[in-house]
Every structure is written in C-alpha cells, then in structure tokens.
C-alpha cells in the first residue's frame, strides 16, 4: 500500500482509538492466552517427561505372581531397556503420635539408581552398614516434619519396628503423593512413603521375595514391542500390569493439567471471535460513513481490489500489532506460568521453552482474525455503487419492515421507545452482530463460572452427600475392642464397622484395580446415588460400582464381575447397580458381602462427629488406641482436594475476570459504533432542543434491548460451552456434572446487561460532545 492510503488508514484508526484499542486488546488477549496456555501445557508436559526420562520412570509396573520369574520372562525381549524387581507393601506406621497406613518401597540398588530413580534432596542415602536406615519421600517429610535422625515405627505383621530416617528424597512415582488411582486425594497425615534398602523392605513387609517388577522400555520400542512384552508378562503370571499413564501420581498430575489443553484452544477462540466481531462492526461503520467517498473513488476509476486491500489493511494492521504484543506477552506469561506451576507442585525439573511454531500459530490466528473480519466489509465496500457518490449525507433509506410498520400505530408508546424498537430492525446485521457480542460475552463468563460452580458442587457432593463420615479408622486384625473405645470417645456420635480392601475387577481379561468398601446395610456413612440422581441403598447381595466402570470394562447392571482381592482367590459377584460419584470408581457392598469376597473380617470403622467435636483431639486419642493402625480425617481429604484444585481455581478465576473484561470490551465497541451511526440524527435532535439525558436514554434503550435479546441465547450457549469444557475433564477418576444455579445465570445476565449499561456512559459523553453545528453543517453540504 502506498503513502496516502497508509496515512488515511492510520489517521482513521487514530480517530477511533478507544474502539481500536479495545479490539487490539481483545486480539492480544486471545493470542496471549493461546501462546501462554498452550506453551505452558507443553512445558509442564516436557517437565514431567524430563523427570521421567532422567529418573528412568518405569513404563510398566507389574504386581502379582513371582516377580523374579516375571522379570526373567522379558529380560531379553525386544524394546526392553531396563528391568528391576523390588518389594513394595502398605504397612501400618506410626510417625510421632500419628498412625497411618504407609508404604514401604524397596530400593533395588543401594544408591537408588536403576529404574524409578530417587533424587536425594536432604541428608544421605541409607548406609549399608546400618540396616535400620530409610529415606522418606519429600511430601512425607514435609507433612510430618521429618529429617535425618528422626524415628519411624513400622508394623511388620508381628511387631512394631523402629527405623531411622537418613535423608529425604524425591521420587518420580510420588510427584503427587497418591496411594493408588482410586485415592488420588487423601489425608496427607494418612499416607507416608518410605524407601528402604531391599533387604529391610522385605523384612518390614514380612516377605522373602520381591513382589513387584519394573520395566522400562527403550525410546525406540514400537507398539508391537510393548504389546509383546505385556503378553510375556501376563504369560509369566503377572496379575496387574500398570501402564505409566495409569501410575497414580502421573495420572493425577495429567488429569490436573489436561484441562489446559482444551482451554488453550477454546478460550482464545472465543476472544478472537469477539475481536473479529468488534472489528467487523468497526469497519462496517467506517465504510458506512465513507460510502460517498468510496463511491467517488470508484467513479474516478479506483480499482476494486485496491479498495478491498485498503480496508483489509485496517484489520491487518490492528491485528498485527496486537498479535505481536500477544506473542511477546504470551512468552513472558508462559515463563511465569510454567515456573509457578512447577514451583507449586515442586517439580524436580522445569522445562521452559518458547516454541516458535506456537508463536507463529498464535500470530497467524491473530492476524487471520483481523484480515478475515476486515475482508467481509472490505468486499462490501468494493461493491458500493459509484452512484453513492451522489448522496451527500451517506444516509440510506431504512427498510420498512413489519415491526416498523406496526409500531407506527402504537401511539400510546412514547416515541422514544418506538424509535429504539425500529432501530433494532434498521440494520439487522448490526443488531445481530451486537447480539453475537453479548452472546460471546455470556459464553465466556458462563464457561468459566460453570466450571467454578460445578467443581465446587462436585466437592460439596462428594463430602456432603457421598462421603458422610468425618473420619476413617483402620484397625489390625483381631482388634475387637476398638469399636467400644471409639463409641466412648467425646465428640464421636456414630461409629460403624467397615471393610476396606484393595481389589482388582476383571472382565473379559481386562483388569481394573480399585477398592471395595463394605458398609452396614443401612449405613449413614455413605450416600449412594443412581446415575439419574435418585438416592438408593446398598443391595443385600452383589456390589454397587462407580458408573464409569460400565464404560471402562463394558459391563451392565446384572452382569457377574470377577473380583480379585489382594490375598485369596478370585470371586464372582453380581453387579447390583451403578452409582454416580464425583471421585473415583469404587465398589461398595454390605460388610457381609465384602467379607465373603475378601475372606477377611471388617478392618475399619467410620466415624461421624457430633457438633463441636474437637477433631484433633479425636484423631490423637483414636490413634493412641491399641489396634488402630491408621486414622484418616475426611476434612483433611477435602482440604487436599481443594489444594489440588488451586491451579484450576486460579485459571478459571482469571478466565472469569478476562471474560468479564471481554464482555465489556465487545459491548463497549458495539455500543459506541451503534451510537456513531446516529451522530447526524442525534445532532439534529439536539439542534431542535432535545435534552441530552433524553437522547442518551433513547440510545440506551435500544442498546440494552439488543443486549436483552442476546441474553437467553447467550445463557443457553454459555451453559452448553460449560458442559463441553467439563466433559473434557471427565474420566473414571473424576465425574463432573454441570452445575449452574439460577443465581449464577441471573448474575451472568445482570453482569452483561450492566456492562451494556456502563458502556452507555462513554456513549452519553459522546452525545454531549457532539458538535451540533459541525455535524449539521457537514450533512447539509
């Protein structure tokens, strides 16, 4: 483009600086969000991968069967990089006054090297010369304030043994401290991980042989290599083969950040759409006012493609500047966000990379937004008839539609309202575009609001309706008098026996490790809800299972499931029903049924507290009872869940703020453009003495009416968008249902309408500032 046209475009843009700035900011935010969220997502993924590569994180963790035989079976298999066997067992532990079920993990090598390598972060590794030494996992050390020299007691099935902490380590298996896939979120005081030399681990686990085999595949291994190895492992007697993706810590972390991938595309798309609409409106308005000029230029022989190029340039220049800013600020945000995420989760490796393809795509998206949004009005401009040059004021006759015709007879309605009503049909495209702006604003607000409200509802449902117990106490076999002791504890209102066991459900050869909880037939400690939301009770026979099991294993109510307890033979049990639970996919039955499956007595109690119970005192006293091996406070679990969701809250909260800003921006731009189209009319009315307040009211009525028309569509679209976003989080570990109350919908509608109302303030100022003489003079020429 050459000089004079450049100057015209730049001066035009400067004259509309507030709108241009608002559009630019919206494009910039869209690009920024895309670059920051997508690159952060990739960085977090790369950070995990670096840790996993460096520490040789196992691709397959095999339990059940003879681990040495299993390891030997794949020793020479193609694609296998490393193999190790070790002992791992969940044991009752006592750390200070706290009793819990912790995990003892054997170290196949003295220096912790091999597979699932550990990083020493304080103290030293166990001294081979001192057989009672262990190292503790970082979260355990933090929770219990453990350091070198501290003592831990571990129950080895016969007696409590003291071990000494020699150091603190970080393990790729416990970047998120999860006991298993079904307990991703637990009471931090109810779980501890201790790494012990293999010989000590066997002693503490009362085993003579390892019970776990770890396999690391080579980077070059093909899928067929992996399938072959899995097949060999099964043939060698492997009971459960856990893929890296199902490893509890990894699964929890990936669940946590996977949502960003959806947001990295969805939210920027909304911002860019909003920017495109605002820019389309701005250019349409500009071209509308320049119709006589365009007509003149075309009459003088201006090439149509030159006209198109000129108006596309407007969008292009705004989008280019904004997209560049978005890429640059997005780069900074990527670094900050990745650092914050890594620091919050204390990741051992942090990868911060600014990817050129991400920046290029972000820039291209921003630029495309500007160019495409500019193209439609630009083409329309090039199609303007040269005869438009004959029209001095650029005013075109309005379309007399049925509403306009009918409203002419509504003489009881003040003319101000009739004017506003007719204006809705005066430029249908503008009205629709303004409505789309309002709809997008509502979508953004509701998509983030619905995530916040739905996750909050999920937490409330889990801890108010599903898990109704206040604490869970696990006891050693034969500890029969604990029941009475718990009943007599001050603050404890109800005590129920429970059988809690790890089991594996097998259907058509596909195993699914989960937990089985046996409860009293008329339990008050757990609420069961059918997938349709109706309450139900425990069946006398058979088991209830989390609804996700149906999809995961392809089972239906009435089918028989094979349930394999951790010890003892497999049992066939009838699936009596499916239950809808926010967290996990577990099995439930009566205590009697559970005992028949596990072949063991009930091993726990669920407690319900009375009002004013001193939770810490109950924990301390109950933990002191002989026979109690673990105590879990449900409020601590709830707090852990809330802390797990912190990143989610922050992201959704930030999006909500951005959504509200976007709502205001879009509405502001559309409203001011709307007003600009009426400058001549308003100036004429002012010239006739109409008060500014009255004129502002007229414009406000129309603009707010358009917004109100958009509200129902926006609410429906926003709820739909929220549902789509939530769906991306759902799997067998999390079941999120859309929960947007009437209050959230009302508030969103009020927020958008308020944004429309607030955007009338600058509009009112514009009306006040109209140079009546100038406008009237110009239009009379």
């Amino acid at each position: 483009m050459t000089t004079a046209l450049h100057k015209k475009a730049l001066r035009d843009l400067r004259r509309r600086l507030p709108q241009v700035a608002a559009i630019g900011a919206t494009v910039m935010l869209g690009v920024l969000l895309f670059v920051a969220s997508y690159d952060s997502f990739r960085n977090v993924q790369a950070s995990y991968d670096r840790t996993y590569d460096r520490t040789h994180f196992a691709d397959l963790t095999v339990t059940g069967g003879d681990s040495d035989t299993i390891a030997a079976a794949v020793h020479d298999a193609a694609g296998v990089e490393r193999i190790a066997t070790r002992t791992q067992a969940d044991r009752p532990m006592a750390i200070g006054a706290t009793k819990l079920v912790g995990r003892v993990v054997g170290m196949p090598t003295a220096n912790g090297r091999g597979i699932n390598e550990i990083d020493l972060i304080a103290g030293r590794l166990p001294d081979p010369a001192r057989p009672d030494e262990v190292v503790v996992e970082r979260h355990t050390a933090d929770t219990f304030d453990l350091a070198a020299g501290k003592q831990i007691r571990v129950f080895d099935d016969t007696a409590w043994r003291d071990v000494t902490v020699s150091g603190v380590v970080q393990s790729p298996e416990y970047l998120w401290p999860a006991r298993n896939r079904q307990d991703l979120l637990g009471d931090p005081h109810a779980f501890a991980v201790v790494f012990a030399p293999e010989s000590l681990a066997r002693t503490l686990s009362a085993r003579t042989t390892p019970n776990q085999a770890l396999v690391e595949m080579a980077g070059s291994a093909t899928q067929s290599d992996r399938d072959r190895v899995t097949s060999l492992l099964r043939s060698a007697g492997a009971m459960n083969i856990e893929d890296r993706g199902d490893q509890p810590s990894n699964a929890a972390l990936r669940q946590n950040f996977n949502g960003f991938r959806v947001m990295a595309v969805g939210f920027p798309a909304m911002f860019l759409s909003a920017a495109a609409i605002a820019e389309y409106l701005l250019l349409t308005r500009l071209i509308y006012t320049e119709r006589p000029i365009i007509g003149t230029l075309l009459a003088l022989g201006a090439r149509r493609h030159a006209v198109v190029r000129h108006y596309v340039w407007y969008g292009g220049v705004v989008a280019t500047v904004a997209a560049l800013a978005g890429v640059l600020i997005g780069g900074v945000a990527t670094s900050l966000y990745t650092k914050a995420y890594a620091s919050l989760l204390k990741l051992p490796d942090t990868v911060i990379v600014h990817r050129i393809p991400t920046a290029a795509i972000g820039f291209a998206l921003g630029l495309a937004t500007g160019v495409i949004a500019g193209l439609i009005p630009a083409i329309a401009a090039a199609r303007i008839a040269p005869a438009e040059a004959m029209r001095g004021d650029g005013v075109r006759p309005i379309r007399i539609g049925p509403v306009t015709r009918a409203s002419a007879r509504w003489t009881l309605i003040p003319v101000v309202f009739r004017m506003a009503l007719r204006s809705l049909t005066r430029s249908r495209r503008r009205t629709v575009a303004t409505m789309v702006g309002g709809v997008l604003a509502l979508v953004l607000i509701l998509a983030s609001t619905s995530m916040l409200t739905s996750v909050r509802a999920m937490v409330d449902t889990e801890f108010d309706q599903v898990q109704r117990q206040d604490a869970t106490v696990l006891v050693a076999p034969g500890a029969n008098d604990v029941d009475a002791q718990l009943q007599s504890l001050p603050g404890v209102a109800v005590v129920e026996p429970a059988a809690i066991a790890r089991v594996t459900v097998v259907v058509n050869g596909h195993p699914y490790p989960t937990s089985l909880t046996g409860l009293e037939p008329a339990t008050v400690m757990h609420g069961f809800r059918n997938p349709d939301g109706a309450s139900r009770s425990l069946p006398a026979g058979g088991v209830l299972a989390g609804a996700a099991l149906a999809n995961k294993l392809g089972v239906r109510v009435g089918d028989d499931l094979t349930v394999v307890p951790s010890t003892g033979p497999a049992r066939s049990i009838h699936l009596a029903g499916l239950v809808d639970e926010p967290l996990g996919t577990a099995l439930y039955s009566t205590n009697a049924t559970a005992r028949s499956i596990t072949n063991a007595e009930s091993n726990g109690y669920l407690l319900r507290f009375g009002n004013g119970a001193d939770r810490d005192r109950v924990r301390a006293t109950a933990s002191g009872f002989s026979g109690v091996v673990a105590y879990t406070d449900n409020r601590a679990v709830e707090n852990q869940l809330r802390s797990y969701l912190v990143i989610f809250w922050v992201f959704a909260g930030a999006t909500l703020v951005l959504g509200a800003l976007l709502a205001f921006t879009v509405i502001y731009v559309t409203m001011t453009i709307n007003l600009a189209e009426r400058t001549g009319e308003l100036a004429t009315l002012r010239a006739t003495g109409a008060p500014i307040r009255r004129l502002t009211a007229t414009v406000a009525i129309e603009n707010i009416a358009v917004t109100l028309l958009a509200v129902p569509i926006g609410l429906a679209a926003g709820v739909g968008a929220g549902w789509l976003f939530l769906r991306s989080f759902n799997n067998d570990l999390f079941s999120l249902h859309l929960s947007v109350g009437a209050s959230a919908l009302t508030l969103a509608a009020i927020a958008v309408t308020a944004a429309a109302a607030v955007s009338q303030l600058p509009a009112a100022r514009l009306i006040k500032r109209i140079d009546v003489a100038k406008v009237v003079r110009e239009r009379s020429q």
Partner: protein
Amino acid sequence: MTKHTRGGVRLRGVSKTYGEGAAAVPALRGVDLDIRAGEFAAILGPSGSGKTTLLNVIGGIESADCGTAVVAGHDISGCRPRDLGEFRRLHVGFVFQFFNLISTLTAYENVQVVMELTGRGDSRRVPDLLAAVGLSDRDAHFPAQLSGGEQQRVSIARALATDPDLLLADEPAGALDVATGRRVLELLQQTSRATGCGVIMVTHNEATAEVADHVVRMRDGAIVSTDRNSSPADAATLRW
C-alpha cells in the same frame, strides 16, 4: 469496447428505468445526444428531469437499459461493471455536488490517493494540479480547514488527477454561495479551454449554463432542446 473517435459523446436511443412494474420510474426515454470532444456542455433541467441519470450513463456509473452510448471513443453500452471501471479509470473524471473528500487526508493527499487507487497519474503532478485550481498554499490543509469552494476545487483537482478525456460535473456549484460557485465554474471553463478536456456539467440553474458551449435541456427524461452557444459567457462575469 469498440474504439471510434477520441473524445466526445454520442448517445442513441438511450433509455433507463428505475424499479419494476407499477413502481417503475422512467428516468431516460430514448435520448439521442451528440457532444463534441473538448466541448463545455451544460445539461439543464428541473429536479427529476433525468439529467443526473444521463450524466451517470455517460460516465459509466450506470448502464442504460437500451440504446448505445459512445463516450470518449468507446462504446460503453452493455459493458460489464469491471469494464466500466476500466473505462472511467482511463477516460472520465467526476466532480460531485457533495465534495466527498476524505476528511483524514490533506488537500494534497486527497488528490494523490486517486492516483494510487487507479494506478494512473504521476504524483509529482499534484502540486501543478493544486496550483491550477489555485490551492498551492492550501495543500497541507485538511478538508475541515478549507471553505466549501476550496473543497470543491480540491475535488476538481482530484478529478483531473488521472488526466481524463472528459470531466463530468454534477451540480458543481450547487452547494456553494454565488461568489464561490462562480469561481468553480470559472475553473471548469478554464480547464476545458486550457486542456482540451471535455466538460459536461449538470445544473438546474439557467444562469450557470450560460458559460457552456452547448446547452442541453431536459424534461421528464427526454431532451427537449439542444442549443449551440456561439459566444459562451465568461464565468468570471456571470451573475445569478
């Protein structure tokens, strides 16, 4: 387009109707017209007589429904819009009653921009064009800083930017006071005489038509008379 002679206008049986059916409004009814190359012609008539439509057909802004129109040596009857654009670019300049200047560009840039958009003309000629319309000292002024007459003079300079064979002016003095209007007519007359560029001016003012070599009178879409003016008035002395 078939090339005949350079310059001049020859219309035969040109008709144009707006709307359809009961709402049809005939704007031109079988107009025959000859205007010689380099001639200053005035089309005179009351509102609704069809004079602006006639100007649009001559300038290739609108196509006639029937008849032939040979303008500046080119038969533009039935031309596609793209060809009409090319025709205007090469042969025609327009001056409108409403100046339609770009408010964000200076007088100089308003002339320059046409050269850029049409790909015709040399921007080094802009100072000469502005000098020719008496605006050398106002080249850096924006339209808002110019009087109505000055703005119309800029629009004349703009119309001449592509060095047209024919300058079409639609009520060029219609929005101006008498003194300023006279100055604009004077400029058109000078342009015609100095450059040999034909000028066709539409006006409803009998007095302003006195400056023309050829006066065409219209009523109800038809030409009612055409008169050659052997001694056209000097625009500088014109009174109305």
